[in-house]
């Protein structure tokens, strides 16, 4: 239950145009105030439960995303914010782009949009919390 109440997120910009990043940061500003839900933007994978990815995956950042995902403790969820993280967006066929975030890490919530709106991002986070709880329950049942 407590996981749902205290989602700490790590925000990583793969190769985004920064549009979605600005919207993610906007969620923390007074207008949207994601901290109402206990959301804290930690810059550190070891402290984070949610991994927010913006921008598509390319050859340079796929290793980084894998490392960040590996350094996060379980249970964790990944959110692909924006259409570039979802599927590569309009850049999907480019020679340097490998695709969306699900090419390297298992994604739990997709938040399309270009740029994704703060309301959508917060909605996505709330859904991700549900997934997080499911994962924790599943892990506990295994043990």
């Amino acid at each position, binding site marked *: 239950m407590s996981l749902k*109440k205290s989602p700490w997120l790590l925000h990583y910009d793969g190769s985004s145009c920064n549009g979605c990043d600005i919207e993610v940061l906007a969620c923390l500003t007074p207008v949207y105030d994601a901290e109402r839900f206990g959301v804290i933007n*930690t810059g*550190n994978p*070891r*402290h984070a439960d949610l991994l927010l990815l913006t921008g598509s995956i390319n050859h340079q950042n796929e290793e980084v995303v894998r490392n960040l995902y590996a350094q996060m*403790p379980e249970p964790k969820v990944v959110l692909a914010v924006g259409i570039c993280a979802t599927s590569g967006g309009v850049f999907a066929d480019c020679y340097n782009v490998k695709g969306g975030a699900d090419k390297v890490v298992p994604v739990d919530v997709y938040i399309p949009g270009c740029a994704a709106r703060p309301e959508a991002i917060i909605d996505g986070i709330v859904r991700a919390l549900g997934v997080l709880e499911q994962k924790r329950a599943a892990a506990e049942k295994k043990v």
Partner: protein
Amino acid sequence: MESLIPALTYLLLAPLAGGLLAGVDRIVSARMQRRVGPPLLQPFYDVAKLFSKGDVEVNGLQYPLALCHLVFMALAGALFFAGGDLLLVIFVFTVAALFLVAAAFSSASPYSFVGAERELIIILAAEPALLIAAAAIYKVAGSLSFLAVAASGTALITRLPGVFLCLVYVLTMKLRKSPFDLSYSHHAHQEIVKGITTDLGGRSLAFIELTHWYENIFLMGLVYLFFAFSLPLGLAAVALTYFLEVLADNTNARVRWQLALSSTWGITLLLAGGNLLALYALGAK
């Protein structure tokens, strides 16, 4: 034996009080920033969540050292409230801080390393002030025991205004508030990521959070001591001091360590050292 009761009360209730204090801190900060802020019990949710996370570590030393950090900080506070010698309490407090520094040093992350070095600078800056404050309290009240000084009804604040101001200045460092949150901060991003706690996660981080709560209650106890002659005044002073710290946190940018060190040592010498020497001039015991 009477001193055991305050110690046990501290050990059991300080996490609750500290967590509530942290929650109030976040709400007040949020309101200052024209936000709503998290629920009051958010810090407890945070710590509970951290305990439920899996352990991901960099080496085998960090978890034990973080646990020792927690236990020794709790011990220091318990010793303080049990009426132990304040100078010894400060030394035990330093030992507790040391465990965290050692945990941070053991990791190869540059952020962790720089955070540890900065934490040492904070300890370097704050230690003389704490020791001189204890010395001044001893000179005025004739005792270094929290219980004895509180019971005696001595108005420390009227004899030691300089020491108190210096202590509040140093408190900003110990509470990890801007402008002195050099090694670790609750704010979003550090220029050194999460500083001293960069490579600590899961339960280790939960220990650090709990330690902060114990530490904050101990430090508030120290503030209270100056007003211990009157319970309502003391509580009001604690509340006001904490509010001022939060205000300073929200209105100041972080300073460079050189300024933190030199300003703290200078203020310590002038305000705390000056106050202590003035006691002799004005005929204390």
